[in-house]
């Protein structure tokens, strides 16, 4: 196990390093001069030079890269040009909204998808099965931000059950805050759940055909007992894979959905940073989000082995 973990760990760190390198190259080397981007093309030469010096842009690229990485590791992310606030503080503020939102969306996704998937598989080839699958096909086709707008129309504009957007902050009590995150989480979860429900259903049906299920049924287990005791655990491997792949979409989704609901999370921070040409904030946020996706894939790799110990023996 330790060797397996070690290999995964090395791959994880290498991917992080690769991602940081790509982000640095794209955002720091390619554009020529970030100071010029910030000040605009009409800025006087002396102002550009002064800002370049302030941002450390007059140092060679490898120095800048390692300064950035050491800053990231020590928690010193620099100071935002637009807000004149430490970037770390901005990011922590954003995370306090985005992280609960992502966790809520992920939990809703898994809950909805597993129940629908198991429900449909248990009624394979019936009208209910077809109905659930048709619904999920529709769910995949609906853009999450449109669903968000429809939810606002129904629950905020017509029914007045929720507010149309905004975030009261955690200081006002967790219930109010969670209430503000509920519609955004539903909008994020629906599309993902539609995909995951299909995967769950087909994976269960696949495993149902295996010999060990026939053995379990032959020794007298009911269909239901075989499902819960033997099929589900085996059917979870593709489901977990898709959950991992979906995490990237979820992260991308939060960027969009936070803008629909005016939530002061990471997505909105990135978006405003782009409009303000605040490249330092963009760079740190993109690195953080990419880091989340890579870390999630690492966790999924480990989860495989926890679900299916057979994989450990096969692991290269």
């Amino acid at each position: 196990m330790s060797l397996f973990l070690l290999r995964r760990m090395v791959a994880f760190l290498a991917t992080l390093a690769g991602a940081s390198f790509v982000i640095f190259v794209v955002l720091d080397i390619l554009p020529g001069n970030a100071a010029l981007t910030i000040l605009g093309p009409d800025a006087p030469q002396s102002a550009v030079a002064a800002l370049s010096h302030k941002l450390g842009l007059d140092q060679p690229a490898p120095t800048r890269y390692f300064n950035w990485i050491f800053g990231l590791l020590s928690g010193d992310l620099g100071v935002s040009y637009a807000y004149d606030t430490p970037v770390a503080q901005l990011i922590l503020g954003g995370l306090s909204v985005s992280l609960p939102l992502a966790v809520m969306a992920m939990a809703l996704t898994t809950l909805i998808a597993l129940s629908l998937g198991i429900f449909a598989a248990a009624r394979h080839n019936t009208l209910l099965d077809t109905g659930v699958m048709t619904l999920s096909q529709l769910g995949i086709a609906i853009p999450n931000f449109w669903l968000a707008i429809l939810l606002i129309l129904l629950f905020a504009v017509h029914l007045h059950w929720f507010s149309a957007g905004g975030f009261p902050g955690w200081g006002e009590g967790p219930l109010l805050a969670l209430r503000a995150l509920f519609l955004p989480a539903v909008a994020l979860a629906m599309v993902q759940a539609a995909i995951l429900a299909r995967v769950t259903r087909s994976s269960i049906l696949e495993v149902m055909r295996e010999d060990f299920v026939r053995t379990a049924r032959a020794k007298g287990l009911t269909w239901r007992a075989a499902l819960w005791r033997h099929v589900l655990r085996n059917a979870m491997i593709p489901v977990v894979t898709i959950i991992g792949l979906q995490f990237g979409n979820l992260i991308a989704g939060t960027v969009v959905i936070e803008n629909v609901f005016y939530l002061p999370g990471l997505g909105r921070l990135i978006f405003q940073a782009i409009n303000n040409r605040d490249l330092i904030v963009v760079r740190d946020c993109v690195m953080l989000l990419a880091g989340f996706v890579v870390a999630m894939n690492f966790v999924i790799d480990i989860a495989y082995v926890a679900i299916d110990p057979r994989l450990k023996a096969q692991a290269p």
Partner: protein
Amino acid sequence: MTAEASFERRALHHPSFAIGSALVLLLLATAAISLAWTPWPPSELDIPHKLALPSAAHVFGTDSLGRDVASLIMAGARNSILVGVIAVAIGLVAGTAIGAIAAASKGWVEEVAMRISDFTFAFPAILSAIMLTALLGPGIVNSIVAIGIFNIPVFARVTRASANAVWTREFILAARVAGKNRAQITIEHVLPNILPVIIVQATIQFATAILAEAALSYLGLGTQPPQASWGRMLNEAQNLMFQAPRLAIYPGIAIALSVLGLNLVGDGLRDLLDPRLARRR
């Protein structure tokens, strides 16, 4: 009965493929007609008649600047297809080449190509588009490039996996015995055999590209005015949710139907091109 005839028969009897094809044809026809005719010029402003309710003159009504919503939807179809086709083409050409080379050369080339494609998954289309627009400014070209880049590893993975399966077949061995090199075998035998898989993937990526373009345009990072875009129409509609909620309905339906159509066609093609899979379902 010839193979083609049986394919057509099966296609017509495959409900999701038939429905999907109808929706895709509707999308293509709308875009094609909009090139020659729209009820009103899509970007013509008519402030006195802004936010008009649906009527005979304006089937879907007008938006906050008095533009005809039906005409904007028609012109938006063109925009979605443009972005989808180019973004998928970028991903398909580069990704298939990388995947085919990886499968043909094995060893460290395959390892490097696949590791690189692995970590591009750390950058979902929206994130890479955000980086590009942060640098180059928003616009349709940048969003196409961003979505296209995101498509490359998708095609690379699918191509490599299917190509690896073809490389183990006996007719490949026969071709090698006949003295053909790896490049010739890839072009003459491997690619034609994995074509169905790539077509299916292209259909599904087309749908994903339409969704991504809509999201980017909604955020203001994609297609810019006066070019019509469904995503941006939704953005404009959101500010008028209390006065004219209907404006938030039409573009969303247009996006959902197009994506649904393409996904159904993709699923249907997968069944039709690989009957073994269809029977197992």
